[in-house]
């Protein structure tokens, strides 16, 4: 029998970026917020030994353990779904801060087109442009409605960047200047400009200078140390819930963080959520936390699973196209990578940050004509310097064996820009 706790105003399921932002904003507005996270507590003191390729990027120290439960994957409806086995390949944030503690911190905005992709595509190219089984739809909110919140997020996180020339004009500039430009970025800039494109430095939450955000939290200056995208930042130079919104919420005295607290059900009366049921993952004890507002702020599939288990909403049925829970989910974007191998140039590839580089967006959204193309939208082309951690970056020229004499000899005269 679950122990019933005193009612609070708000409960969040997970305390990463989303839970942290909700906690900061609602506690500042005077509400009492309880943050439940199934992982462990952590703060900047835990970040001091992260310059370790084996422990962080390869073994996935900061990723959620899959010991008791995992996620299944299938490519088509006819296949059987199989569980992801290896923790390090799932790359799901763990504990307080979640994925926000080890993200690469690339922070573009979506385009106005993205929010109204269905109606704008039809408007320009006609109904037939969208195939029958393509489920794209308008978000229900527009870019203009969301712009003030993008701006607020960027100020909270101190984002360093320069405007994407393809964007509508910004209300405010980025709060901090773009990161430095290295040789690889200058090469990309020169080449893409010559081709008529509009390169710009990627906006990022690894900060170009020390910055104090409107809540009074300080984010330090990035050291380009090369241990970023899968690592925690010991300088507190990466925008991370642990150095921004969580301390902000805690300062109000209205935020209570409970770790090792795994939410198993959203409780509801059929029309409105009334609280959550959660388990102490150490003792197995069950608790009921009543709340006026329940916010699902965990990993996308955990949110969906919780809704399904709690029998909230109509599950999405991909065959009939009915239902909404689980439809059109958003997860991490895919990337296709190519490398440049030079035998006459040597770069400081060991210098890197999570999202350091330049990009062109001329081939994304509807910024180019899709009339004669059999797809909508597109992708960003970027020159990213992601570091050359030695275990994961043994890149050799095509045709070279990936081991043995030839392999060992090749990395010593070939250098890489990615």
């Amino acid at each position: 029998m679950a122990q019933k706790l005193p009612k609070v105003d708000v409960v969040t399921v997970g305390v990463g970026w989303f839970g942290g932002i909700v906690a900061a904003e609602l506690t500042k507005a005077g509400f009492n917020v309880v943050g439940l996270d199934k992982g462990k507590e952590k703060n900047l003191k835990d970040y001091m030994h992260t310059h370790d390729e084996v422990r962080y990027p390869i073994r996935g120290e900061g990723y959620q353990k899959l010991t008791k439960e995992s996620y299944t994957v299938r490519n088509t409806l006819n296949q059987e779904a199989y569980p992801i086995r290896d923790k390090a390949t799932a790359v799901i944030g763990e504990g307080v801060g979640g994925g926000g503690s080890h993200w690469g911190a690339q922070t573009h905005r979506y385009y106005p087109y993205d929010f109204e992709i269905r109606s704008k595509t039809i408007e320009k190219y006609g109904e037939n442009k969208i195939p029958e089984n393509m489920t794209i739809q308008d978000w229900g909110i527009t870019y203009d409605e969301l712009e003030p919140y993008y701006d607020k997020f960027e100020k909270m996180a101190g984002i360093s960047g320069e405007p994407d020339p393809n964007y509508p004009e910004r209300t405010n500039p980025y709060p901090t200047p773009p990161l430095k430009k290295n040789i690889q970025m200058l090469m990309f800039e020169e080449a893409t400009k010559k081709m008529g494109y509009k390169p710009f430095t990627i906006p990022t939450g690894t900060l170009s200078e020390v910055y104090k955000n409107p809540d009074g939290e300080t984010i330090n200056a990035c050291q380009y140390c090369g241990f970023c995208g899968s690592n925690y930042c010991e300088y507190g130079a990466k925008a991370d819930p642990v150095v921004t919104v969580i301390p902000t919420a805690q300062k109000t005295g209205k935020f209570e963080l409970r770790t090792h607290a795994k939410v198993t059900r959203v409780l509801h009366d059929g029309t409105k959520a009334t609280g959550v049921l959660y388990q102490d993952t150490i003792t197995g004890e069950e608790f009921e936390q009543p709340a006026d507002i329940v916010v699902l702020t965990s990993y996308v599939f955990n949110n969906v699973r919780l809704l399904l288990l709690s029998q909230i909403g109509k599950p999405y049925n991909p065959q009939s196209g009915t239902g909404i829970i689980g439809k059109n989910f958003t997860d991490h974007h895919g990337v296709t990578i190519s490398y440049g191998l030079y035998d006459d140039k040597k770069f400081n590839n060991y210098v890197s940050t999570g999202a350091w580089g330049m990009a062109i967006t001329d081939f994304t959204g509807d910024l180019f004509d899709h009339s004669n193309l059999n797809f909508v939208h597109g992708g960003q082309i970027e020159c990213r310097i992601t570091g050359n951690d030695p275990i994961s970056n043994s890149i050799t020229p095509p045709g070279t064996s990936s081991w043995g004499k030839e392999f060992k000899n090749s990395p010593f005269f070939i250098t890489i820009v990615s």
Partner: protein
Amino acid sequence: MSETENKQTHNQSRRNFLKNSGLTVGGLIVGGAIGRIISMKPNSTPTTTQPVETHQMANYNEALQFFTRKEDFEALAAATEVIFPEDENGLGAIGLGAPYYIDKQLATPWGRNADDYMIRPFKNGQTPLTRGDIMLQGVRKINEVSQKTHNALFNTLSEEEQVAILQEFEGGTVEMAYVSSTSFFALLRQLTLEGCYCDPMYGGNKNMEGWKMKEWPGAQMSHADVADASDFVKKEPKSLSDHM
């Protein structure tokens, strides 16, 4: 090559390593001297002229935590050296400590897949084996194939013979139980590279020699000084022990 000869080569490469790096032995003596100075009480003066006793700190880290049979570990060591051989650039996997690194890693919770989803049923080619299981079966299989084709243990074969056997594993043509030989080889290769390039605290990448070969500066606190440098800047590597 006989087993004894192979061992000699192994020891030879270690000796070369010590000779070439030129600092390991000296460094240890200095360490002992510093230890003695620190332990001296303030204002205390040596009253006699007795010779000072210096302690050479032996390395007790190179022993087995996971593997149990000598020939298994020898096959592993030989295979890592084929994957990452000693050459004019510097040490190979054995000299860098990769075999002991692998042994240690397999003895950790990672080697037992403690944080992974290991609940049955395993279907569609997913393996029920732990990493330790795969590596143990794999190195025994390497010796088995070696015995069958050359009537000798793997570590005694010529390099060409060793390469040919590992190519078979990589190509997936060797029959293994509950795992493909391709998957085993990928794990072996990954662990070998880890052993050559990990932080030296793990027991591999000895003296940061792997990093030096790759001109990788290791666990530096900052590269802000060279972020927009126009030329390549070589930095002497640092390990995590510098962060203590």
